[in-house]
């Protein structure tokens, strides 16, 4: 599967500088195509084959903006600010809980038309070996640039809704999200995905975050609804002195997800925590790849990933911790645990430590197994049926990762979505 040049010619051109990047990126993508298992980072997720098997005629989404979205897609009984992206396009924002003077949100599309604005983000259109990034550079047609001033603490979480409707059917949607958090600021961000009418589409989003000195960004990536979407999300974070980045990934709904989290700890005492769960059944295929780069001394990172696989499902966790030679006193921790509950399900794990400093504390662990028979017997000897016992153990197993969430209201939301999902799974 590949895309034709005619597809590229459909996009409207604007700034010459951008057009050159687009053309170069398209050529690059055209020569590489979608990633295959021959590429090390895609070893367990042959995207080219997955697309061939699931899309007969995948095209780039038309450059058309619809602004009607279903209000029911919004999260009820949960006070929050919102940004709505519909089919990748920026529709509206609402910061009624905040001091709006401290927050700036712009459509990426508008920045493409203005030389000065584009200058600010040009840096992020860097060359990348990953053809999904080239694809995104070539076709990205919107997204947001969100900037938060120094010394601003959000009162309520911000939900970025990624909504999709009929316009996205059998299409690839490419967009970008830029977030920059000033010094001494904090934001809890929910990245929420939902589509209507169970349409099939491919979403390719590249995120770039900057977390400045003493700031905290907590991100909750929620892919909870069982749907037929295909998602590639790559997030690059630059963390500065004494900042905190927390990311929890609820990877339980769509047919396909590959999430990548690349975090650069650039200055002292920056920390990064990535935790998440994958609960899959049917033919679902999810992958999480984390890449934590300790580039300076005294930084801390940890990952806890828990997965449960049923039926024919397939999950992968690739976790790399890189410590460069100047990053002394690094503290790095990584643990992946998976339960495989059917003969045909598959879990792949690739933990990697690459350490060039000599005074560091790093550990990693990875286990794959089945439910312990003794645990089932214990619960059944207290009157629980085998199904009840299994479910209780699986729920507990995954709960351990959910328990790490430090925002109580968001934890409740995630627990609720998780319960709905596990009740539909044949554990």
């Amino acid at each position, binding site marked *: 599967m590949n895309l034709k040049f005619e597809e590229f010619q459909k996009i409207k051109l604007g700034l010459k500088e951008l057009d050159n990047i687009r053309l170069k990126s398209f050529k690059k993508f055209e020569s590489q195509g979608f990633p295959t298992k021959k590429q090390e980072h895609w070893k367990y997720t042959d995207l080219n084959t997955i697309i061939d098997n699931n899309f007969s005629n995948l095209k780039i989404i038309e450059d058309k903006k619809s602004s009607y979205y279903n209000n029911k897609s919004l999260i009820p009984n949960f006070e929050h600010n919102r940004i709505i992206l519909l089919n990748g396009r920026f529709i509206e924002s609402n910061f009624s809980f905040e001091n709006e003077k401290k927050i700036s949100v712009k459509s990426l599309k508008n920045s493409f038309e203005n030389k000065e604005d584009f200058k600010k983000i040009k840096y992020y259109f860097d060359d990348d070996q990953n053809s999904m990034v080239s694809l995104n550079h070539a076709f990205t047609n919107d997204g947001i640039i969100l900037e938060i001033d120094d010394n601003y603490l959000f009162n309520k979480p911000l939900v970025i809704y990624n909504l999709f409707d009929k316009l996205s059917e059998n299409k690839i949607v490419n967009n970008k999200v830029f977030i920059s958090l000033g010094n001494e600021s904090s934001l809890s961000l929910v990245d929420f995905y939902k589509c209507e009418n169970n349409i099939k589409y491919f979403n390719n989003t590249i995120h770039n975050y900057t977390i400045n000195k003493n700031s905290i960004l907590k991100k909750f990536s929620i892919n909870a609804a069982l749907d037929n979407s295909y998602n590639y999300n790559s997030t690059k974070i630059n963390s500065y002195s004494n900042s905190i980045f927390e990311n929890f990934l609820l990877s339980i709904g769509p047919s396909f997800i590959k999430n990548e989290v690349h975090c650069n700890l650039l200055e002292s005492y920056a920390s990064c925590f990535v935790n998440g769960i994958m609960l899959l059944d049917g033919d679902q295929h999810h992958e999480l790849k984390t890449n934590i780069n300790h580039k300076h001394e005294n930084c801390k990172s940890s990952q806890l990933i828990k997965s449960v696989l049923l039926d024919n499902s397939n999950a992968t966790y690739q976790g790399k911790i890189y410590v460069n030679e100047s990053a002394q006193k690094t503290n790095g921790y990584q643990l992946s645990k998976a339960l495989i509950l059917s003969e045909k399900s598959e879990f792949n794990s690739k933990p990697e430590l690459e350490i060039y400093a000599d005074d560091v504390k790093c550990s990693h662990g990875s286990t794959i197994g089945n439910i312990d028979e003794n*645990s089932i017997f*214990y*619960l059944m*000897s207290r*009157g629980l049926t085998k199904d009840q016992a299994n479910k*209780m153990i699986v729920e507990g197993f995954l709960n*351990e990762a959910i328990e790490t969430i430090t925002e109580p209201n968001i934890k409740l939301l995630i627990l609720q979505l998780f319960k709905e999902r596990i009740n539909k799974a044949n554990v």
Partner: protein
Amino acid sequence: MLDINNLSASIENKKILKNFNLKIKPGEIHAIMGPNGSGKSTLANVLSGRKGYEIDGKISYEGEDLLKIPIEERAQKGVFLAFQYPIEIPGVNTNNFLKTSLNAIRKFKGLKELDSLDFLKLVKEKSKNLKIEEKILSRQLNVGFSGGEKKKNEILQMTILEPKLVILDETDSGLDIDALRIVSEGVNSLRNEKRSFLIITHYQRLLDYIKPDFVHVLVNGKIVKTGCSDLAQELEKDGYEGVTAAR
């Protein structure tokens, strides 16, 4: 209540219980003592339904063929095993587990399931009697519990579930004097003319606190001697060899 007739049990072709016979009437407390490897835990496992044993013989529980009753139904029908080594289950909240267990049993009995409020009230009362800190009930099931806390948790489950037949599998091992007393008080408080106990133990110590009606000596998968509670003291003095040699 319980009638074990000619029971044999083997695991991996090794015969552990051999033509074992035991009758327990309602309200009776039986103690089974025996050296390591005599088959004590196998007996507890077979009664509660643990898989992996080849079983011959008959066990009748309240007139029903116990061996044909699935594990969870045995519990629902009032059989309770206090584990020698209670299992740690990460991520499962102890209170939540207890509530699910109690409601499974209540449902079977045709009683109304308890809601969270009523349940917490009940747990509060029962755990206070057993001097169990409420804190541990909001922790993960048995995870990071000390040996004593695990055993106390078993006894708490027993007092909440109110079974008809209680099997204590070496509940006293690894307990200090205070915990031993609390465990015994839990058992004694449940003692009545309808409820029966089968206490499996190595030592006479527990039987100082819980006075059994009968003491059986189990050696090599068979009961070799039966007596009243004095037999336990004899065992303590002369050892298993002494008592069985005098036979």
